[in-house]
Each structure stands twice: as C-alpha cells, then as structure tokens.
C-alpha cells in the first residue's frame, strides 16, 4: 500500500468516525431538548442541566463536523476568481490556501491543548463534571483540520482536477 492509499484510507476512516460520533451526539442533543420540554409540561419538572449539556454537545458536533467540512469543501466562500484561473495557477493557489488552512488547524490544535490544560479542570455550571468533557473538542478539531487540509494539499498536487476549496451558502 503506497502513501496516497494510506492517506486516503486514514482520511476516510476519520470521516466515518466523525460522522457517526456527530450523528450520535446530535441525536442526544435533540432528545435532551425534546425531553426537557416533555418533562416541563408533562411532569412539571424543569431539569437544570438540559440547557447546559446540549450546548457542550453542540460544541462537539460543530467543531468536529466543521473539520470534515474542510475535506468535503463545504465551507462557504467565493470561488469565481479561483475557477477563472488557468489550471496550473489554480493548483498552486489551491495548495497555498490549503496549506494556510493547515496552519490555522495547527493553531487551533496547539493552543487548544494549552486551553484544555489551563482551564479544563474548572467545573461545569450545573453538574459536577470538569470542562475536560468538552474543551478537548478544540484541539481534536484542530488536529482533524490539519489532517484534512494536508489531504487537500496532496490532492491538489497529485490528482488531475484542481477544484475550488469552497462550498455553497447555508443562508
């Protein structure tokens, strides 16, 4: 198995893992918020952590899926100029931009670790758990961004088609 195959497989494995983790966490988030409404009106009980835990789940889901969005070219942008360039320039630009995204991933990874080390031991607001349960979303997301941006760089260099790295809008 050569390096490109290994990279493809590693990226596919990461995407599949993130996908299922996000599906489970997003489902949990949804069930908690719906259960909170049912508990409030069905049983007259307001449970305090039902506002807090979904926020942490949202952070995990958002930063993990955002990293996969890099590989899937889902992030919103302006690709008119990029697509108008001749192919060699497009390829060089694609590599440069993806390398910068890699750099940003490194910052999120590196300083995400510092952030977890410095503040992870603080307690959550309403439940007796520490922030270690959700602060790691940042360095893990940073690491995933690095891996996926690296794959984009490799793809831009070795694959025949150099595509824009942006996606369409969500608005």
């Amino acid at each position, binding site marked *: 198995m050569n390096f490109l195959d290994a990279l493809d497989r590693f990226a596919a494995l990461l995407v599949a893992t993130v996908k299922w983790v996000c599906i489970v966490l997003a489902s949990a988030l949804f069930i908690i918020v719906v259960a909170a409404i049912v508990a409030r009106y069905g049983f007259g009980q307001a449970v305090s952590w039902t506002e807090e835990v979904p926020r942490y789940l949202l952070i995990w889901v958002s930063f993990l899926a955002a990293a996969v969005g890099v590989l899937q070219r889902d992030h919103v942008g302006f690709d008119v100029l990029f697509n108008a360039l001749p192919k060699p320039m497009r390829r060089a630009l694609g590599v440069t931009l993806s390398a910068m995204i890699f750099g940003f991933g490194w910052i999120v990874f590196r300083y995400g670790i510092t952030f977890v080390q410095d503040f992870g031991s603080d307690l959550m607001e309403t439940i007796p758990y520490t922030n270690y349960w959700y602060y790691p979303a*940042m360095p893990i997301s940073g690491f995933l961004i690095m891996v996926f941006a690296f794959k984009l760089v490799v793809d831009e260099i070795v694959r025949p088609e150099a595509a824009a790295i942006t*996606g369409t809008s969500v*608005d």
Partner: protein
Amino acid sequence: MVLLLLGLAFIILVALGMPISFAVGVSTVIATLLLPGVDNATVVQRMLTAINTFPLLAVIFFVFAGTLMARGGIARRLVLMAEVLVGWLPGSLAQIVCVASMFFGGVTGSAVAEVSSIGAMMIPAMEKDGYSRRFATAIVLTAATMGPIIPPSIGMIVFAHVAGNVSIAALFLAGVVPGVMIGLSLMVASFVHGKLYHQKILPKLERAEKIRRIIDGTAGVFTMVIILGGIISGIFTATEAGAAAAVYALILTIFVYKEIKISELPGIIWDCCVTNAVVMLLIATCSVYAWILTYENLPNMLADNFFNLIHSKWAFLLILNGFLLVVGMFVDMTPALIMLVPMLLPLALKFDISLVHLGLIMVINLSFGLTTPPVGTALFVALKVGNISMEKIIPPLLPLLACMCVVLLFVTYVPEIYMWLPRSFGLVK
C-alpha cells in the same frame, strides 16, 4: 494601520478562494502577531465561547426541520396548494412560485434551500408552460429571499446572538409582514409579466382535488404555527420551538406522508451536522474577528470620524441601506452580520433605532445580497438549477429586485408597518 492590514488580509484571502471562516481565522492569527494583548490562546478560547450559548442550538434544529420538510415532499405539497390559491391569476405559475416560497419560508430559514426545492420543481414546469427560463429562474431566486425573512430565520438568530439585548421572538414576528410584502410585490410583478407576455390559463381543478391540496399543504404551513405560536405563547424558547418543529417534521414526513424512511435519518442528521458546522465555524471565527475590531475601537472610531458627519436619522438609514446592499453583493449573510452588528450598534443607539428595526434592515438587505451578482450564494444555486449563465438572468432580475427595494424602503422608513406585530404581543416597547 493594523486594522487596515487585517481588512486587506481578509479581502485578499476571500477573493483568492479561501473559505470565509478560514480567511477570517487566518486574519485573526495575523492580528495576534501585530497586536499586543491578542494571543492565539485567546483566539481559540473565544472561538469556543462564541458558540457556547443555548439560543444558537436553534440553528441545527431549524436546519433539521427544514431538511426533513424539503426531502419529505412538503415543498411539492406547498406548490400544489399555491396552485389552488393563486393559479387562476395572470402569470399563474410565477404567482405559484411566490406563494409557495412564502409558505416554504415559514418552514425553512434558508434561501438556498428554497431555491433548490422550489426551483427544481418550478423552473422546468414554467419553461414547459412557455415562460422564458431566465424569468423563471429570476422569480424563483427573488422569491427565495423570503426564506431568511419569514420566520424561522437563521440570520435573525445570528443577529440576536451578536446584538445581545434583543429577543429572537420579536425579530421573528417582525419578519412576518416584510416577508409577506416581498411576496406580494413579486406577485404584482408576476401579474404584470403575465398580462404582458403570458396569458395562458391553467386547467381548472375539481373541488375535491382543491380541498385535498389545501389540507395537504396546510399540514406543512402548520410548522410556522408551531414555531410562532409556541414562542409567542411562552410555551417554547426559540431553540425549543426549533426542536418542536423538527419533531413535527419527523412525524409528518416519516409516519404521515411516509416519504422518508427511518433508515435515511442518520444521513439526514449528518447533512444537518455539516450545514450547522459551517454556520457555527463562521460564527466562531467571525466573532473573534469582530472582537478584535472592537478591541481596536473600530466601532467608536467609525462613529466618531465617519458617521459623525451624518446628523439626520433618515440620511443614516439611506447610507446604511446602500452600504449593506453593497456588502451583501460580496459577503454572505452570517459573516456580514457578525462583523457588522458590533459596529452598527452604537450608531443605531445614537439615532434611536431599535434593535428589531436594525435587525430587520440588516437581514433584508443581506437577503437581497444572496441574489445579486457577483457573489450571491442563492444566485449561484439558482443558476445551477436553472442551467443558465449569470448575464442572462440579470435583465429579468433587475425589475424584480426593484420591486423588492420598494418594500425595503417601507421597512426602513415606516417600521410601524411591521413593529405592531411584536408590540401587540408585548415583545417590544
């Protein structure tokens, strides 16, 4: 100087094709090199805290409800209902597009979702009926601006998040009248187009068929009743209303219409996670950027040095509209809202403009921006769905945009036409 460099870095990176969230992220990292007091640890911390709020959960729920409704055949049923309601008017199919988009705006908060759902059905149907493809694409595109204006609206949730002291419920309610007015203005344009170029009449429907279509379509429109009714009555917060709308969409599309299989749900949830993540990363990085601009005192500098020259509220509103229309031509709604709201808040206060009024002006202007060249993300999707080039859509687009600008002027200068609604429910003073 630093701010200028920051702005330039952002513009150059976006122009070259870097996704906006990362262009903003890289620019903020550049700022950490130039500004004392701003470091990378703070950048990461602020990215996380920017999305650590309960109201933002509404985004993923509304995206989920909207996706279920779009894939579960609701858009098709709304089109069939609209045919009963306005199919007899001149410009029948264009009228149907306007009314179906108005209803679908109450189901989804996204113009892109509207263009792809309604456009995929109506552009080929209109072409078959004798309309030019460019007019069909233009009317679908402009009608889609109702998506982010008629509640639910992702743009309004983002505005409320950034502005702080404003209720999402008030913004949602305030959006109803302008959204309907945009729909009506486009119906007038369709009427004129029909009278001038297209006098074909649709075949009459049987009475039983009409009733069936109305019942079918009303089930979709009921989503908005759940959202607005739930929020106004105090039963739900905006976030919970999103979750309730999603539960309703699940029941309707899986168990009643049976158009979505349970086995398809993981894939739909994953698509929603990615869409939500795109919005959240924009919010996270743009919030840090906006914080740096505020840290560097840009809002006050602008207020003191530039906007200080304006003394009249009306002149300010006019300049604001022009400015936002130009911004909307180049930047998407979410990043524009996050970066501009902190700068415009002090000015709105100075001219005694309420936050709901400011929010409506911003969301409507930036919704128009989604349809205008050179960068209009709804425009790009419409061109793809309609399979036409940008220069072909511009001639029919301009008169339709002009109709919508008339509504924009009303929204800007006569806020009473929509403020009565949130006021009557005690949501604004």
